[in-house]
């Protein structure tokens, strides 16, 4: 009898432990692991000075930006998205061969456990403030990928700052080499249309792009990384 009670107690204990491990609290993870560098709520004042003080991109609209599966994987095994660090202008140094990235200034992103990554991803995906992206902006009407690539590389000059296919391109913007896995199509389209509406004062020019450009570019970027949406 005693043995049965003990076994039950042990079993209950393991259940509790198991629950704690599987059910990491996303809000706690964001607070303890992310909030020191990333804004999880909109800034009171989105000034140019704030851009210079920021340590990492804002995450208060993460739920309309990222794909959850990518977040879960990346948070466990982060790789560098921004070749010149963040913000780029704090990490570049002049050299005899032109500006380069001061590797000593680049830090590694913290790595989360599987349970923390899942919980953090869930909490991030819940951050969906209204008015950040234009839902349905990307129409996915069989965009012409060849024209999209031409716009990305030549006509709209995106690759001047962003690495695209095969990692080729500039370094002041985030690499878009796997953007299709990482980003939601409407976020890509909205950011192309008005970068500063999402990220005030950001150093990406707001070109007067046509809707055709937005559709082609988004269609092209979405398939970078092998994902078709």
């Amino acid at each position: 009898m005693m043995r049965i009670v003990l076994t039950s107690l042990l079993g209950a204990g393991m259940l509790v432990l198991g629950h704690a491990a599987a059910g990491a609290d996303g809000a706690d993870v964001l607070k303890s692991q992310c909030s020191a560098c990333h804004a999880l709520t909109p800034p009171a004042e989105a000034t140019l000075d704030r851009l210079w003080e920021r340590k990492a991109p804002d995450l208060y609209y993460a739920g309309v930006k990222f794909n959850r599966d990518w977040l879960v994987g990346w948070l466990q095994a982060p790789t560098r998205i921004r070749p010149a660090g963040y913000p780029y202008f704090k990490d570049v140094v002049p050299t005899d061969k032109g500006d380069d990235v001061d590797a000593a200034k680049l830090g590694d992103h913290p790595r989360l456990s599987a349970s923390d990554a899942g919980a953090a991803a869930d909490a991030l995906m819940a951050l969906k403030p209204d008015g950040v992206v234009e839902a349905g902006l990307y129409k996915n009407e069989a965009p012409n990928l060849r024209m999209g690539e031409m716009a990305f590389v030549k006509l709209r000059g995106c690759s001047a700052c962003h690495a695209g296919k095969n990692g080729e391109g500039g370094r002041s913007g985030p690499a878009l080499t796997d953007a299709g896995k990482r980003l939601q199509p409407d976020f890509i389209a909205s950011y192309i249309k008005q970068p500063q509406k999402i990220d005030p004062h950001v150093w990406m020019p707001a070109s007067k792009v046509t809707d055709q450009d937005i559709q082609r570019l988004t269609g092209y970027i979405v398939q970078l990384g092998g994902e078709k949406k």
Partner: protein
Amino acid sequence: MRNGILALGAILAGTLAFSAHADAASEHTVKVYNTYCVQCHGVKRNGSGINVPALSVKPRDHTDAKGMGDLPDTEIFSAIKEGGLAVNKSALMPAWGEVLSDADITDLVRYLREVCKCGPSK
């Protein structure tokens, strides 16, 4: 006599105001350059920015007194506000008119004159 003094005062005040205006660029203007322009025009302002290896056209060297001196202020203003195409240059110079105010751009033009140590072409 009184009018003469007043007039002299006005001229002096005007000169002072002009001097203040022509002073070194504000911290804000330098920060604007360091945020938006440096990515291509470079930390040294000589057209050697971090993105240059990815560009098919070399960005303008803002320290080049001859090249910059050949440009009128209005052309530099247009290039910044409306992009390279507006002044028959490369599309890789984007239009910044949606990001920067006209006042910011005017200040940048003035700052570029400091950087190139050159006046505008007449």
